[in-house]
């Protein structure tokens, strides 16, 4: 029987890259009483299933695979005094920072904490989310699920594959299944551009002659027990399928890589305010949510494209939790950040204006020669290329906000526009 203390200084839910970074940073700062909880039977989150390389360029200055990136943090955690609970799921969090958890040893138990870091990860959008018509055979699976099946559990999903969605997971899986000897017939993308990284189009599709069809989507599904074919149609400018362009493609497996959604069920149980744009919680520059002492990082805060950024956010969440423990309160933030032209969402949504800040901005559409601008404070930066596939980081010095604070204005708007000057 494991003896768990019930009052933790920092309780971290989620043992992926965000949670692991937060735990190690908190430990490094000198906080003794840390608990790291993970639903799976090993730490790492989605990293152990992301066996491809390309992780860690920013933090480790070399290209690591997902499992390697995770292993570095796992080894450090196992060598520390950080308490870990594996195969443990958090069922609810209340706003007094009590967490209801369950696992084989504890049954159902309430744990309490002085601060909580939510690093809950994300979920995949499924067939229902994009309303694909047709029958309901087996063989229609989300790409991340198949990644786990193939890379950890040792199952192959089928033989002839069609992939809908050209985000990075879709591209990576096209290559992965090709290497496993399956036939990937094509990747279809409803948008006029791929949201995947350019390098993944090169090394995952072009290298293996897998065709990418932009402005196409699945408009029907055939098969009774098992998927037998899909109907593919072009879409018009409004992304509406043009059914007369349809063609039927035989396949036994349809992989969906059609977007990720922040995991936020636990946030609802404690009344944390959500941002309908990012899908995650509203946070200030310290990553504190609307409930004091509860912080968020990783893919449950917003969908990241680089794990290095998740690690940095995990560090920040731990530093903020540590200063909350020291001061008994979080920072006060009175300036709201409003997403303007061509922006899906911005993290953080609120700032104090008293610290240098890095805005994490998700552009809506690709723009060449773009200008990122905050009119209210005269910040203006040129960018060669921006797009939805790569998070835009905008660094702003605290000095820039001085006049704004004096004037008493409580918001600034960030815009991305095309640079037509010169």
């Amino acid at each position, binding site marked *: 029987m494991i003896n768990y203390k019930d009052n933790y200084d920092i309780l971290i839910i989620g043992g992926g890259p965000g949670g692991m970074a937060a735990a190690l940073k908190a430990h490094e700062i000198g906080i003794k009483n840390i608990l790291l909880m993970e639903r799976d039977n090993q730490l790492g989150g989605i990293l152990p299933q992301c*066996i491809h*390389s390309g992780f860690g360029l920013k933090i480790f200055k070399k290209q690591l695979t997902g499992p390697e990136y995770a292993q570095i943090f796992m080894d450090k955690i196992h060598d520390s005094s950080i308490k870990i609970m594996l195969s443990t799921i958090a069922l609810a969090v209340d706003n007094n920072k009590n967490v209801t958890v369950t696992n084989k040893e504890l049954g159902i138990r309430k744990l309490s904490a002085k601060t909580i870091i939510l690093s809950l990860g994300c979920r995949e959008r499924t067939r229902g989310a994009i309303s694909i018509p047709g029958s309901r055979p087996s063989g229609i699976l989300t790409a991340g699920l198949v990644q786990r099946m193939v*890379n*950890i559990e040792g199952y192959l999903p089928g033989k002839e594959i069609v992939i809908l969605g050209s985000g990075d997971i879709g591209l990576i899986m096209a290559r992965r299944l090709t*290497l*496993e000897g399956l036939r990937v017939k094509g990747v279809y993308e409803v948008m006029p551009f791929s949201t995947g990284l350019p*390098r993944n189009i090169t*090394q995952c599709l072009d290298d*293996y002659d897998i065709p990418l069809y932009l402005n196409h989507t699945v408009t029907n599904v055939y098969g009774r027990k098992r998927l037998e074919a899909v109907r593919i149609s072009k879409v018009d400018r409004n992304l509406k399928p043009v059914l007369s362009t349809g063609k039927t493609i035989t396949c036994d497996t349809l992989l969906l890589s059609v977007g990720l959604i922040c995991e936020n069920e636990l946030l609802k149980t404690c009344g944390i305010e959500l941002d309908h744009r990012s899908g995650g919680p509203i946070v200030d520059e310290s990553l504190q949510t609307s409930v004091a002492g509860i912080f968020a990082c990783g893919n449950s805060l917003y969908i990241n494209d680089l794990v290095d950024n998740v690690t940095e956010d995990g560090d920040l969440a731990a530093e903020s939790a540590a200063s909350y423990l020291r001061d008994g309160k979080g920072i006060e933030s009175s300036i709201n950040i409003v997403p303007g032209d061509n922006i899906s969402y911005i993290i953080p949504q609120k700032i104090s204006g008293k610290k240098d800040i890095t805005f994490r901005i998700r552009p809506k559409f690709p723009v060449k020669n773009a200008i990122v601008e905050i009119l209210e404070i005269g910040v203006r930066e040129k960018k060669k290329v921006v797009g939805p596939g790569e998070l835009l980081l905008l660094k702003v010095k605290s000095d820039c906000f001085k006049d704004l604070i004096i004037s008493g204005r409580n918001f600034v708007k960030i815009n991305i526009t095309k640079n037509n000057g010169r």
Partner: protein
Amino acid sequence: MVDREFKKVITCIECPVGCRLNVKYKNKKITQIDGNQCKKGNKFAETELIDPRRILTTTITIKSVIIKRLPVRSNIPAPKGKILEMAREVKKIKINPPVKMGDIIVKNFLDSGVDIISSASIDE
């Protein structure tokens, strides 16, 4: 052979930026390159023209209580033309724990000059 100059657009895969490199070359030697935002682009374009290489990442069977497949990789980028064959052959390997990240599973795999190493540590 005539000493003609060729043009090619190569997407650099060294980092997530993915610069589009406009490369001009003669006899497999680069005469002009632009579009790259850093020095890595020059080197990448050079090897991509003469001897394109990729990191191979795949899995092998492991008898473990935690996972069924062990992630493995080539220690250095392997010849691009050999990747599919290597992926097919490496699948056949079976091992038992314990294994440490970085352990060599096969040395000089299929005479490719690269080793297959473990991407993860599995104790049991």
